[in-house]
């Protein structure tokens, strides 16, 4: 026995922790998104990557500026601003002026997070809030999509518009599969939808890779599988019913699942733990509600894409859902609350 004892700490139990931490969860999500980002860059070229960078820069800048100095290391280190910027960037049109993407990133973090008190306190998904703001603010720029498969290093002049200046589009805009469906009742080739060779934003095109990323997250236990499953379930049921009623007018369930931002939203955004219900039952309600709203807005509403609004609306209802879906406490029979 040594003469003097080691200096003992008095950390309370439990001493053991499971391996995952908040930053590592965020990192996992970013990793899961990377294949889709790479594929998107392949289809849309360098410009998509620049848009992504601008939105991440905007998000990180605001996060950095509004975090008290002593907390900055943590706030930047927890990867959450990076993830928000990335998710936002993946929903933007590839030829969006960079300054708009930057403003979007700033709004996402500023309005979506800082004002609420930082990570974990916000009730709305920051990335989607940033996108909703951009869509409301710059409706034309946000709905001008470019076609995939142009030269990799082509930088359209709209991309480099000066701050506060309107972009000038030099290429003919391409419609997204959803736009084609909404305004011209035209379907799109399913294979293209699957691999992502369609018009749209960087992250919403390649359904296959998004699903793969989602499976990775599920395997890593980083995501509540109930939410995407519930969203898909509700959307498939609702759209199948409509499709059976009038297949010429309404899109089928497969189209609904693989077009637009459905997968990106269902797998990566609706599952944001901060803004989705805590309880498993709540997660089901949240998912089913979002799935119904997506189809409602897509089919009967004014916008071709409803994923963003569906999730934001369900975010708004999350406190209520959480309140009424508290689990039944062990040993307390039918008593709820």
């Amino acid at each position, binding site marked *: 026995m040594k003469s003097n004892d080691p200096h*003992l700490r008095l950390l309370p139990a439990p*001493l053991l922790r499971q391996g995952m931490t908040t930053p590592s969860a965020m990192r996992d999500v970013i990793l899961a998104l990377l294949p889709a980002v790479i594929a998107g860059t392949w289809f849309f070229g360098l410009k998509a990557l620049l848009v992504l960078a601008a939105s991440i820069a905007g998000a990180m800048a605001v996060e950095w500026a509004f975090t008290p100095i002593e907390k900055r290391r943590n706030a930047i*280190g927890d990867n959450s601003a990076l993830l928000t910027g990335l998710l936002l960037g993946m929903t933007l049109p590839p030829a969006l002026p960079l300054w708009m993407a930057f403003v979007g990133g700033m709004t996402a973090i500023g309005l979506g997070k800082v004002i609420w008190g930082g990570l974990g306190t916000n009730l709305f998904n920051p990335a989607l809030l940033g996108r909703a703001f951009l869509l409301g603010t710059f409706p034309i720029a946000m709905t001008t999509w470019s076609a995939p498969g142009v030269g990799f290093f082509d930088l359209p002049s709209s991309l480099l518009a000066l701050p506060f200046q309107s972009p000038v589009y030099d290429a003919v805009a391409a419609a997204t599969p959803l736009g084609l469906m909404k305004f011209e009742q035209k379907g799109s080739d399913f294979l293209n939808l699957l691999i992502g060779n369609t018009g749209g934003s960087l992250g919403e095109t390649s359904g296959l890779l998004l699903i793969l990323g989602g499976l990775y997250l599920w395997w890593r236990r980083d995501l509540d599988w109930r939410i995407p499953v519930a969203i898909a379930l509700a959307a498939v049921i609702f759209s199948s019913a409509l499709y059976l009623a009038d297949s010429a007018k309404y899109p089928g369930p497969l189209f609904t699942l693989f077009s637009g931002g459905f997968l990106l939203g269902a797998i990566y955004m609706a599952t944001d*733990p901060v803004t989705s219900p805590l309880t498993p039952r709540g997660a089901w309600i949240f998912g089913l509600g979002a799935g119904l709203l997506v189809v409602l807005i897509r089919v009967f509403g004014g916008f071709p894409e409803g994923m963003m609004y569906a999730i934001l609306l369900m975010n708004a209802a999350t406190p209520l859902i959480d309140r009424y879906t508290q689990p039944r406490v*062990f040993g307390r029979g039918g008593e709820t609350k």
Partner: protein
Amino acid sequence: MSLLGSLFQRSFRHGVHPEGHKEATVDLPIQRVPFVQRYVMPMGQHIGVPAKAVVKVGQALRRGQMIAEAGGFMSTALHSPVTGKVVGIGPYRHQDGSFKPAIEIEADPYATQRIEPQPPKDWEAMTMPEFVAEVQQAGIVGMGGAAFPAHVKYSIPDTQHIDDVLVNGAECEPYLTNDHRLMMERPAALIRGTEILLRKLGAKRAIIGVEDNKPDAIEILRRHLGSRSNISVVTLPMKYPQGAEKMLIRAVYDREVPAGQLPRDLGILVNNVGTVVAIADWFDTGMPLIERVVTVSGPGAAYPANLIVPLGTPVREVLRFCGGLKDETREVVMGGPMMGAPTASLDVPVLKGTSGILAFTEAETRTGTEYPCIRCGRCLEACPYFLNPSRFARLARARLFDEMKGFHLMDCVECGSCTFACPSNIPIVQLIRTAKNNLRSRPNEK
């Protein structure tokens, strides 16, 4: 989920799966720690009223002699772990850092420390109150860690009847193997103790619940049970906190003990394997509770071991016997890593409830950066009581303790599953403890 669960596995819902870390000690037979010079026996080694000393300073003691009697119904007796003499009665350092009344005993270096076996007690002839008094006399408490006086559980009101005796061999805390070894090495005593309880309580059957990470113990028990039909062994999947009474009942019987009620309200009596063995020892050999099996383990322990330790032995001496601590040791925990309490000093004694002495190093005790709660819901999925730890932590931070009460704060048993599961390193259990203490310390409230 619940349907599948009940079809394929017998377990409770929620809970966590910490790494077992039992391999270090699982195959080590129980060794006896030699007697040392000094012993400290605190008066309050159990839940309830402390015992009352019946010896004086300077008085000579025989090993096994009663040194303190029960201080009330919720109290049990204490016995001297060694032959020696009383050298002091007064406040001694307790493992929580405070000073509590205790009896200090100096061992007689020349004594044999042998207890003459006494004839088996005729427990079958005893009335129930006599039996309860005997158990109290023997100083037997729940050996799983909580140290709840055992006789209290046996005093069943007339209106109730125990149908089932459930022996808790789950040992769900990581690192600990003391119950495991006990089942391996003393299966006969375990079955004997179960038999006594069955007969005295008039119960129909007994089940020994063991987690499936102890296949050897299950096999040995089954072999010893032979063709007995009233005692059986049930295999449970590994899960924490399966060893908690109510969770074990949920796992074995698929029944929930209603909040605020006790297992006996369902006609079930739950005892730890250590407790049952102690019962057998007392009634068969007259050996009171003066020693117990302790697992010494953890990354900081030089030579992990399973030991029989006389109560009152200072932790330092126990560790010395098995090679001491490694230099990297940063924390020593009494009990399991999930619910045990850290000790600030190695001079504190081993108590009736000390199931393990675990030494941890830098790697386990590093305070990870605490991140804000991202409401991921992992704590909800971990909580075996279906509480909402995330909300408790938030409310506790905002000091809204009264509101927490409305969400059944007091149902929490502080098993630590939520904190284990939290990816943001939030000390949820600590916050809950603070809130509970705050609520309890308020005057004029029940």
